[in-house]
């Protein structure tokens, strides 16, 4: 007779994932936090092109983990000082011209952020993909991993499906595709211009393509990322938000 005690090690062996197995959640998380790290300071040039106008914004930003994020427009002059604070699930805008802070209401979270093709929801929900979606390795080729993210039944999400295309062997993102409820691809983000930043390799350019409007796009070009910034939670307050540059 074999006792149950004798079987226990075998049982554990079957349950635990092999050490060499790919941690999909970790991979997606690393993509979503590549620009923020533990904490960071960055400077970005955002070029927006729409059917009706085209403009370029210069911004600086601070972030702490995946929950805190503050950005401020430096140029052009007309919008200089307009700032956004994201703390946990909330987004505030500060308008220096009228010296007012505005909290984005839940119903407007799907709206455009600073006129770009990035929504307020992207600021809040992007960093939660590994929590709100069920991840699955859809395909693995010599050069790529294709990770499929389907919403968890209980999660409140925006997309019907998200596909991460990650390059081998450095595990850097190449593109992310966003699908609506009907499973048509409606938006794609491309990453390129990989450069070393400190010890890491980071794609310094991010292009957002709204596929329904082929002539429109938003390009985010990271001009500087400093992962050494010493920031605390206190920094990400409405008081900091209202500080004029």
């Amino acid at each position, binding site marked *: 007779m074999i006792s149950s005690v004798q079987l226990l090690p075998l049982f554990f062996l079957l349950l635990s994932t092999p050490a060499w197995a790919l941690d999909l959640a970790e991979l997606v998380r690393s993509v979503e936090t590549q620009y923020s790290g533990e904490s960071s300071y960055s400077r970005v040039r955002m070029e927006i092109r729409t059917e*009706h*106008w085209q403009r370029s914004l210069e911004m600086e930003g601070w972030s702490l983990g995946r929950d805190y994020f503050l950005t401020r427009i430096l140029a052009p002059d007309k919008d200089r000082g307009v700032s956004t604070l994201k703390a946990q699930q909330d987004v505030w805008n500060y*308008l220096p*011209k009228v010296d*007012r802070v505005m909290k984005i*209401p839940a*119903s*407007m979270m799907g709206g455009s952020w600073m*006129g770009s093709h990035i929504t307020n929801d992207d600021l809040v929900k992007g960093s939660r993909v590994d929590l709100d979606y069920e991840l699955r390795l859809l395909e693995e080729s010599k050069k790529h991993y294709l990770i499929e993210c389907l919403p968890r039944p209980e999660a409140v999400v925006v997309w019907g499906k998200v596909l991460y295309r990650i390059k081998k062997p450095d595990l850097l993102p190449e593109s992310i595709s966003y699908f609506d409820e009907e499973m048509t691809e409606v938006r794609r983000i491309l990453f390129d211009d990989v450069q070393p930043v400190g010890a890491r390799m980071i794609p310094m350019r991010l292009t957002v393509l709204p596929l329904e409007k082929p002539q429109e796009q938003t390009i985010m070009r990271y001009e500087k990322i400093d992962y050494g910034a010493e920031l605390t939670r206190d920094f990400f307050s409405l008081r900091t938000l209202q500080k004029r540059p």
Partner: protein
Amino acid sequence: MLASLALRNLGRNRRRTLLTLCATVVSCSLLILALGIFSGMLADILDSTTGQYHGHLVVSSPQYPERRSLYDSFEEDLKTQEALLRHPGITGLSPRLRAFGLLSFTRAALPVELLGIRPQREASVTRLGQQLVRGSRLDSAGGAQPEVLIGEGLASRLGATVGDELAFMTQAADGSIGNDLLRIRGIFSTGDRNRDNQLALVPLDWLRELLVLPDALHELALRVDDPMEAPAIRQRLEGQLADADTSLAILDWGQLLPTMREAIANFDVSRMILIIILYSATGLGILNTFFMSVIERTREIGILLAMGMTPARVRRMILLEALFLGLISLVLGTLIGIALTAWMHQVGIDLSDWITPVTYAGGTIAPRLHATFETANILMPALILLGVCLLAGYFPARRASKLQPALAIREDA
């Protein structure tokens, strides 16, 4: 001769004829009054609905009504506006510009619709900006600081009142972040809760500057004399706009408010149902009267046949009696009906002590009985009454013409 005989026959059993006449006159006049009140109610609803926001006709770019995109604007052209105002039937015109954005007082920002208007022009089309519960109307001159009128629900959700400063933020047409402070000048209540929860009225010129849309408009709201004529005027204007090559489209209130149009269209059916119900009772009464009268006169009709009157003439005589009864009822019923409607039109009955305003098909039914005149409301009851009388007379007339003279004369009188 047949006519005088028919008239005298009517006068024969005076009480019975009078009673029948009473029934027809009362049903005809009350029907006219009821339809007048019904129409009055619908006119109230229609007026409250169109006067609340849209007006009767809206001229805009063809895509604008559906997309409401900031960029579907057109350049203000005073010549077009003058031409429209000269068009027969059009009594008012209001140029408008619209923006969607966030409005905040303290911290809670709310999504709102900002409608840029010229207050006096708007007053020629709708009651927007006039039904104030607090504060005062927008100043067309526009002071140093931009001012805003906001809906009652919006005010309470913002926690703001007259004199408070609100911040507004939106995306301007050049992509910049349009934002400015607005001082609340007044708080309005249109009666439509949805609108009161998210509408704010601002001076047109201020909004143009904020949106970086100089000289632009999103729509021209028009008011017409008779709302029922709006579709016809729209068709004429469509031709005119096409000739002028303005690439502008025009919608009438029926297209803007389909539920309202349905409610009005349903009235035609309701009117028919009301007429049919009331007149079938009246018609049966008339039928009964004429059958009795024919049966009582069996012997006499036999004599008429014996003397050589043809059955067709006998039938015509009875039908003439019915026609005369119908004509007398029609004249009296219509006159009394018009008089009652006129009274209800001028005086009306205020029910506000008993009933609160009811919302129906997006409009508000005022708590009052008030009649309006509509040709069909008088013509239909009158003409159908005549038809009912003839129909009610037809069967007895046929019976009379089929009598066998020998048998009829034998009948004991």
